[in-house]
């Protein structure tokens, strides 16, 4: 028996293995992963399922589902194929979700990191700005931004990002405020590392896990916001998006409910998958110290 401290434990499995072990403990998160994979698969295979323009007239208008195998999920008021709309819509929804989230996270990280790291008047000014943004109801701000620039999908996506950055900014700030006093930050400063490097190379990677988890929330909210815009007839009609499909489908909700219900279910499942994914990420990235 030895007390020698220098003996090194056998190496741990690689990080992704550990990650996966923790992730799969949460069964609901596994469901989320399956759903998410399904949505991604739909987005990827949209061009294979239906190589044409999803907005073209594909059959008799308002054909119910399971009647014509050319259009298995039926057609909408203008004879557009619901199935291909759902598949192409997955692309748009994922695109909106991912890009809007990136925009929100990037803005949030920069503002939150600066405020949390430097503190003092920088923090005061940035937090006042954040509060200002938080005070304006974000959907009202979104409507205003869309009113300014019109309903182009690119702009809608960016605008959703712009109205979503405050929460990640606050989270990043809180993380930075707690991390900046951690000894490893002192250690880096003590080595003469510059502020920029400390912020982005030392602290940020450690501040990311909760942000990554929250990103799933923003993704979910982005898709819901796009659909709410479409409900108010402010979506971009040049693309098949689930929001647009519901927005138009609700006109025939009573006579041809599938037009709105099918994309509605697609949204629910996608948003659900993001949320469950977030729960799983939370378990995997922020393991609670169990004794």
């Amino acid at each position: 028996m030895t007390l020698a401290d220098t003996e090194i434990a056998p190496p741990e499995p690689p990080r992704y293995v550990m990650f996966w072990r923790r992730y799969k403990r949460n069964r609901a998160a596994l469901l989320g992963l399956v759903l998410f994979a399904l949505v991604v698969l739909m987005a990827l295979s949209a061009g294979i399922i239906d190589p044409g323009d999803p907005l073209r007239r594909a059959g008799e208008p308002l054909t119910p589902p399971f009647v014509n195998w050319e259009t298995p999920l039926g057609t909408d008021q203008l004879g557009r194929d619901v199935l291909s709309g759902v598949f192409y819509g997955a692309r748009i929804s994922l695109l909106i979700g991912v890009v809007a989230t990136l925009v929100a996270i990037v803005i949030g990280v920069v503002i939150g990191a600066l405020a949390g790291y430097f503190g003092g008047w920088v923090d005061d000014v940035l937090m006042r700005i954040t509060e200002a943004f938080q005070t304006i109801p974000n959907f009202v701000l979104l409507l205003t931004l869309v009113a300014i620039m019109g309903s182009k999908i690119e702009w809608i996506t960016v605008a959703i990002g712009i109205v979503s950055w405050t929460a990640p900014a606050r989270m990043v700030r809180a993380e930075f405020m707690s991390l900046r006093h951690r000894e490893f930050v002192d250690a880096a400063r003590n080595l003469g590392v510059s502020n920029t490097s400390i912020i982005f190379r030392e602290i940020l990677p450690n501040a990311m896990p909760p942000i990554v988890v929250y990103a799933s929330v923003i993704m979910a909210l982005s898709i819901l916001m796009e659909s709410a815009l479409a409900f108010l007839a402010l979506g971009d009609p040049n693309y098949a998006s689930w929001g647009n499909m519901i927005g138009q489908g609700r006109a025939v909700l009573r006579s041809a409910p599938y037009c709105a219900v099918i994309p509605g279910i697609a949204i629910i499942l996608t948003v659900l998958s993001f949320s469950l994914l977030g729960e799983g990420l939370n378990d995997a990235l922020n393991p609670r110290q169990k004794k």
Partner: protein
Amino acid sequence: MTLHMPPILSYALRRLVQAIPVVILIMIGTFLLLKLAPGDTVDALVGDMGGADAAFIARLRAEYGLDQPVWVQLWRYMVKLASFDFGWSFVYEQPVSTVLMERLGTTLMLMASSLSIAFVAGIVLGAIAARRAYSATDNLISVLGLVFYATPSFFLSLMLMLVFSVKLGWLPVGGIKTIAAFYTGWDHVWDVVRHLIMPTAALSLIYLAFYLRLMRASVMEVADLDYVRTARAKGAREGRLMTHHIMRNALLPVVTLLGLQFSTVLGGSIVVETIFTLPGLGQLAYQSVVQRDMNTLMGIIFLCAIIVVVVNFLTDLLYARLDSRIELA
């Protein structure tokens, strides 16, 4: 601040002073933002009327001062605002303050009821889920909560309306009261409650998941703390642990969220108010944007700012009540 006043007052005053630059920032920002949007309220009015001739349009624009440079308009507005004059709504042909006051009641009722239901239900369900973490019950509660959360609010609202108003005929389709029924007293209250049930349900089901998730995480965290172990070592049963030891500490982060949530809910209520024809601030804000009703929108944002300041203040007080570590003096 050398004045001797109760700490709560001086705290309130301090919060107010802190809020002023934020409010000014918000007001100027909103003003300029809306000015960036193409068209003005005259365009919107003329569009609503189904058209008008050029002279009429020019006259209206001069009448509303919209022919002035933006900076002049902004300056005039801010000067008026300094004396709490919100100006005139050209869309409603009423002072903005009147327009706002008419809507405020509905909004506050809707928000108070849906937030409190979401809050209470979220807390209870979140606590249950946390105590049975990773069990079937937990999965059921969590997934169900998330399904509601994932449902677009208009979708949920339309479904509720379809079931409860059209098919079952139990609840009124929309509005805040039965028109021309002239109820008084408790009948009136009951009437309003009936009108609020569905919109409240739609809104609260969505926000419920927020609180549920937060509460679940919070309870799981607090349940691991040392003092809970202490209480267990004293011989307390699980139920008592929850009610006497875990709950209050677990509530702290949830209460913080409550304060931040107000504006979000106001934005989220736009769609619900539109569907249920509730004359609330959310719908008014939406209408003000698409009608470029500058003064009304500015009024709403100002009101929002005030409410957010007040709600945050109350949250702080509540927080202080809940957390004995925070000193009141």
